[in-house]
């Protein structure tokens, strides 16, 4: 099933991902669901937000959804997202799930990890 998802990225996903699938279908913005968990406005947080925005703008234009969550304000998300380090970027979709920790300054590694093939 996971193969299907990867091959046919825009098609509806399996039931397992329930909500996200619906969200994706409705928004129609693309197949990348990214969540960035930050802990308040620390220098690391600010850098991470800037970096991910830049990466998304450059490589995932029009096919991503980015949520930024402040776990200080919403600590429950830290538990649900199994967050240990901050900042953490979670690639919820497409599978497999990946986590990027740190200020996201190492763009190359992130692109590799996000499986973005088309590099410019």
């Amino acid at each position, binding site marked *: 099933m996971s193969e299907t998802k990867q091959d046919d990225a825009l098609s509806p996903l399996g039931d397992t991902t329930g909500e996200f699938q619906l969200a994706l279908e409705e928004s129609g913005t693309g197949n990348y669901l990214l969540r960035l968990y930050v802990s308040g406005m620390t220098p690391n947080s600010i850098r*991470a937000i800037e970096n991910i925005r830049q990466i998304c703008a450059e490589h995932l234009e029009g096919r991503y959804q980015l949520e930024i969550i402040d776990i200080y304000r919403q*600590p*429950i998300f830290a*538990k649900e997202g199994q*967050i240990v380090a901050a900042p953490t970027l979670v690639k919820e979709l497409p599978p497999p799930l990946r986590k990027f920790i740190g200020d996201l300054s190492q763009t190359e590694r992130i692109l590799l990890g996000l499986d973005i093939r088309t590099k410019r």
Partner: protein
Amino acid sequence: MAETTINETPVLEILQKCPTGIKGLDEITGGGLPLGRPALVCGGTGCGKTLLAMEFLVRGATEYDEPGVFISFEEKSEELTKNFASLGFDLNDLAARGKLLLDYVHIERSEIEETGEYDLEGLFIRMGYAMDSIGAKRVAIDTIETLFSGFSNEVILRSELRRLFRFLKDKGVTAVITGEQGERTLTRFGLEEYVADCVIFLSHQVANQIATRRLRIVKYRGSTHGTNEYPFLLDEQGFSVMPISSIGLDHSAPTDRVSTGIPRLDSMLEGKGYYRGSSVLVTGSAGTGKSSLAAHFVDAACRRGQRCLYFAFEESRNQIIRNMRSIGLDLGQWVDKGVLEFRNSRPTLYGLEMHLVVMHRAIEEFRPAIVVIDPISNLLSAASEMEVKSMLSRLIDYLKMKEITAFCSALTVGGGEGGRTEEGMSSLMDSWILLQSLEGAGERNRSLYILKSRGMRHSNQVREFCLTDNGAKLQDVYVGSGGVLAGAGRIAQEAREKAEALERSQEIECKQRDLERKKALVEARIAALRIGFDSEEDELERAISRGKLHREVVTQDTLAMGRAREADATPPPEGNAPVSGKRERR
């Protein structure tokens, strides 16, 4: 909240302690873990770290009303719940009542990509959130070292760990952090450098194929603590540590007595039996009746309504009951009534220390007045002599402290005195009864004597110890020129004596009859003589009277003649008259 303070160290700020509620641990730590600080529990795989951490929380929640948070890096919440259900801890129930919160922190190296500067704020927030949501007073983290496998930047990790422990201190929670044992260090990643207040080390050693779990307090800053290795037990009731260092010699000494169950043995002990709370040792070679003596003691105690705990290392419960029935003791009824309980185990089942722990716990649970250990010497097979001695002294001290009468039997090899067992134990025991086999005349007989009995004037006599259908009986042995005789020898000797006595009495009777006869004979003779004499006397008297009569007649005749002749001569004087009178009668 039960806080214990200790006064040993003259510091201004007395270290406050948080009782763990774990059996024995609070005793050796002098009240518990340092309150509001993290403590490190380290040890090898499967030594019980997680269990200790969890029990700390569960006891806190159930006994001290202190909610706790369990941060698990290794097992998922469901797994933990399942694992601890077998120990009787209902984690779901505690969680539902807001007493316990399980948080599983999932760290998967393959999912994580490090892309620059980071910190572990996520973990802090989660922990902080979890603690705040139930107002946690206790925290357990199991095992934080998993972080080292999930993150590669050790510099960040170490600084974050330091921050974590500060964070826990600031939160004022008492925390138990577990750590895996390292090769040369206490923990693989040196957690001990962060947790400096209290370090507890758990080990699981195997010696002579017997595994023993032990606990040691490596460090406890600002507090005195037991420094030994203490064995502990993990079982369906959780964790129990045995504070086995000798408790001291200040136990009370009751003066009342308990019957031995054998009247004549009681009478050998001033007619009252053993002192309550004393320790009794019965030694003897195989088959001398040690267990029977124990059974009598137990039976008598149960009859009085005292609870007895019987540790049997040789026989099963049913076997003991069956065997004792053969000497007329029904121990089964006491088991049914709940005053007697058997704990049977093989000595090699676990190490000596473990036996001690198990016995301790059984005693704590059952609260007996009398404890029987049958036989104590079998424990030797589980350990060295020195260990046995130290274990026994701790056990005896413990029993004395509880004023429990201890009855221990010990098997001696060869039947002589001063076997290996006794050397180690005799000084610990208050009363020592020796059962021996007396061999002679082609048979073996049991004998009993009291080698010592502290604080009472006991009999110095050897008694024959007979096992009859109606229980054990003590009999006087035959002591005489032929030495000490027992059994058939004694019976034969008694019969011989009886025969001799009979013979003697018959002889006396015979002589008496002889005497009677002689007496009768003499008397008969006397009677015959008297009869002869009487007839002779009669005859003589008749002759005399005849003579007298004759003389009178003559006198009369003479007088008549004189008168007739008118003679002037007077008759002879009257003095002869009686004689002549008598003659006259003749």
